[in-house]
């Protein structure tokens, strides 16, 4: 059992639990993007570079963009309203 790997895996659980507890949506989205980035490192640990490149492009990139555009569209971030709370 490798200490670094255990650290990465713990990070995943912490991310998931903190999203369950946070009320701030922007924070939740940011945590989700961090989770995806860590996930793509874990794919490298598991010797799957295909997945790492896809996860980095999709999980942290496109999905994150979609979440941000959604939050902007409904006025929770950006624009004159400022972010909620």
């Amino acid at each position: 059992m490798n200490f670094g790997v255990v650290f990465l895996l713990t990070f995943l659980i912490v991310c998931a639990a903190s999203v369950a507890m946070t009320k701030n949506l922007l924070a939740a989205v940011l945590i989700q993007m961090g989770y995806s980035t860590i996930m793509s490192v874990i794919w490298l640990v598991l010797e799957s570079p295909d997945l790492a490149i896809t996860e980095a492009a999709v999980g942290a990139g496109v999905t994150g963009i979609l979440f941000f555009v959604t939050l902007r569209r409904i006025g929770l971030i950006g624009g004159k309203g400022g972010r909620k709370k």
Partner: protein
Amino acid sequence: MGSNLFFNYFEATAVIVFGIGFTILFLDRNLIKKVIGFNFMDSAIFLFLASNGYISGRVSPIFEDGVTAAEHYINPVPAGLVLTGIVVSVSVTAFLLALVVRLYLRYHTLEMDEIVALSRKEADE
């Protein structure tokens, strides 16, 4: 209880994250958090799947120097399935977020129970 829980720490992490994601998707009332929960749930499943294919001490299945002997490489099947799964997951995420946008533009809230209550009050078209 079997004997392999501490050897299967990847799978154990995956099911813990799966459980949390499942609960967020099922019972959290905020729609955006539901979508994030869905993403957690799916990527936890993928972690579970990919850890099935890993064999310690071997490398990724991209042939180098013409060596194709199976004992050099890990199992490519889980990686392929996960690749398919990631596409499905991002498609569903986009669909869910589009629904969230439409619901917000109509009801001006992100809480599912309030949206349900408001839609009950509406007259039928």
